[in-house]
């Protein structure tokens, strides 16, 4: 990994670059050119983008440069190059959702998240690769090629927002937007060594984002640091009348509490679930991370969640029934246009019973009640983001322990399924590396609409560690 003394522009964090833009020491066009040059350098190795809009990005950057020169500074995202997962609508830019079915789809309207980023002055450099229709965790895309992990291109970037995770890790943008249904922001954040948050359901608009499973879909930022993540979250969070599931809850300044220490904070762990059935390197890294936070005077508390077992089945039932409903027409008219893995999952989702689906949804209520009760005694939970490190590109199974191969889809959601089902916000933060140099992430789970505390814990952890600032050799 690189430890550079004098860094190039594209190697800075979002907030470092923003400071230079605000002081007019660096222009948006210089930042955009630096990022586009890095995209040219890295893309042949990692394939993180489906579409790059270099000319448009330069034109927008020039316009922002003129605004800033005229005294109109719009805030930390002004003039900063960012990337969007390809299931977000972008007006005039092809938005495929990683599919052949939508391969020619050019929206005539932005997603609300896209519009808010544009209004904050962000420069969109391109649309990132993803698992087809977000229905899977590998980003092994049959239509646009697999995205590869910048830390080892023979390994996967996880998914479904694998392109966004790889692009941030490879310094191809200062931040990216991902979407997360069962773990699709947090999983690629963990295996690519970046920071990414799944918000409380309803906190960020899903308007004009191609859905996977309506009752669990969310969108959120993926960045190099927790502070960068908070800066992007400040822009995209908030009620949207165009999204009927959007919550009318006041939006705080997510940067405001970052520097408040974690002394006295109570961190819940569920030992029998959080630290069983995982690779030793992951176990050790997350346990060490808890020690770091204890060193900052946080308190680790063992908690029992009586019905946590069963969450993976509930997750699979809901996450298959809802996409199969959305795709019902295309599955009958264009089945050959789906990749094999997604096609069979859509077929399976049509064959589950309504009672399976509704019992799974009732289980969500039960699990949420248990977590809400536990929040009387703790402020956040911390667990691994996933139980293993990046697997080889193309793998459909994984060995976690005992030499036994397990189905990738079930195994990968061991920890991320819990916030998805309960609607709780959660963020993956880099917390170590395996002996063979692959990143490991820990997941911080908070109370509903308390993303501010999650950002604070992540930021304080990153003040005491340097896992987040390490950079892959490409």
């Amino acid at each position, binding site marked *: 990994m690189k430890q550079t003394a004098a860094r190039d522009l594209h190697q800075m964090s979002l907030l470092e670059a923003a400071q230079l833009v605000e002081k007019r020491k660096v222009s948006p066009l210089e930042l955009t050119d630096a990022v586009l040059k890095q995209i040219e350098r890295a893309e042949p190795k990692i394939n993180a983008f489906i579409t790059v809009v270099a000319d448009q990005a330069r034109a927008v950057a020039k316009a922002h440069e003129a605004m800033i020169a005229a005294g109109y500074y719009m805030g930390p995202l002004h003039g900063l190059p960012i990337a969007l997962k390809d299931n977000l609508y972008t007006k005039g830019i092809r938005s495929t959702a990683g599919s052949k079915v939508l391969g020619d789809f050019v929206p005539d309207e932005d997603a609300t998240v896209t519009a808010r980023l544009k209004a904050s002055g962000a420069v969109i450099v391109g649309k990132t690769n993803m698992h087809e229709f977000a229905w899977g965790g590998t980003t092994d895309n049959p239509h646009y090629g697999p995205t590869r992990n910048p830390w080892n291109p023979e390994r996967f970037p996880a998914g479904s927002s694998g392109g966004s995770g790889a692009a941030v890790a490879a310094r191809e943008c200062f931040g990216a937007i991902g979407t997360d249904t069962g773990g699709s922001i947090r999983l690629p954040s963990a295996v690519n060594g970046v920071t990414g948050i799944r918000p*409380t*359901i*309803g906190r960020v608009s899903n308007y004009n984002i191609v859905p996977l499973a*309506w*009752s669990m879909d969310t969108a959120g930022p993926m960045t190099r640091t927790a502070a960068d993540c908070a800066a992007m979250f400040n822009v995209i969070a908030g009620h949207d009348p165009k999204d*009927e*599931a959007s*919550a*009318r*809850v*006041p939006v*705080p300044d997510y940067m405001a509490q970052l520097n408040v220490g974690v002394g006295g904070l109570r961190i819940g762990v569920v030992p029998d679930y959080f630290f069983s059935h995982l690779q030793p390197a992951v176990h050790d890294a997350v346990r060490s991370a808890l020690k770091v936070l204890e060193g900052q005077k946080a308190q680790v508390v063992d908690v029992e969640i009586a*019905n946590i077992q*069963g969450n*993976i*089945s*509930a997750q*699979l*039932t809901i996450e*298959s029934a809802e996409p199969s409903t959305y795709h019902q027409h295309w*599955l*009958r008219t264009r089945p050959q246009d789906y990749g*094999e893995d997604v096609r*069979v*999952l859509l*077929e*399976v989702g*049509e*064959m*589950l*019973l309504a*009672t*399976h689906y*509704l*019992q*799974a*949804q*009732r*289980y*969500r*209520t*039960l699990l*949420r009640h248990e977590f*809400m009760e536990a929040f009387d005694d703790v402020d956040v939970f911390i667990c691994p983001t996933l139980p293993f490190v990046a697997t080889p590109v193309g793998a459909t199974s994984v060995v976690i322990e005992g030499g036994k191969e397990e*189905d990738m889809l*079930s195994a990968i959601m061991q920890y991320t399924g819990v916030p998805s089902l309960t*609607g709780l916000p959660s963020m993956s933060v880099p917390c170590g590396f395996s002996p063979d140099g692959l990143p490991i992430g820990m997941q911080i789970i908070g*109370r*509903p*609409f*308390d993303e*501010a*505390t999650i950002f604070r814990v992540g930021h304080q952890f990153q003040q005491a560690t340097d896992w987040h600032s390490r950079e892959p050799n490409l």
Partner: protein
Amino acid sequence: MGEEFTAKEIEVFELLADLPLKAERRAAVAGILSVWVPAANELSRKMAEPQYRALTPNVRFTHPAAEEVTER
């Protein structure tokens, strides 16, 4: 019914879903359903127990209760 679904049994699901599949696709579908359905049935048995009778499906978390929103 055993834990393993057969291609013949998948044909019944196809009828229910009005989703005819070619014969070569049935094995892949059966393989996944053979794992997922027993797990879903186990969860259904749990959720059908009397102590959970009052729980309703939480399909969307909108309009959070006031106590769920952190005070600032």
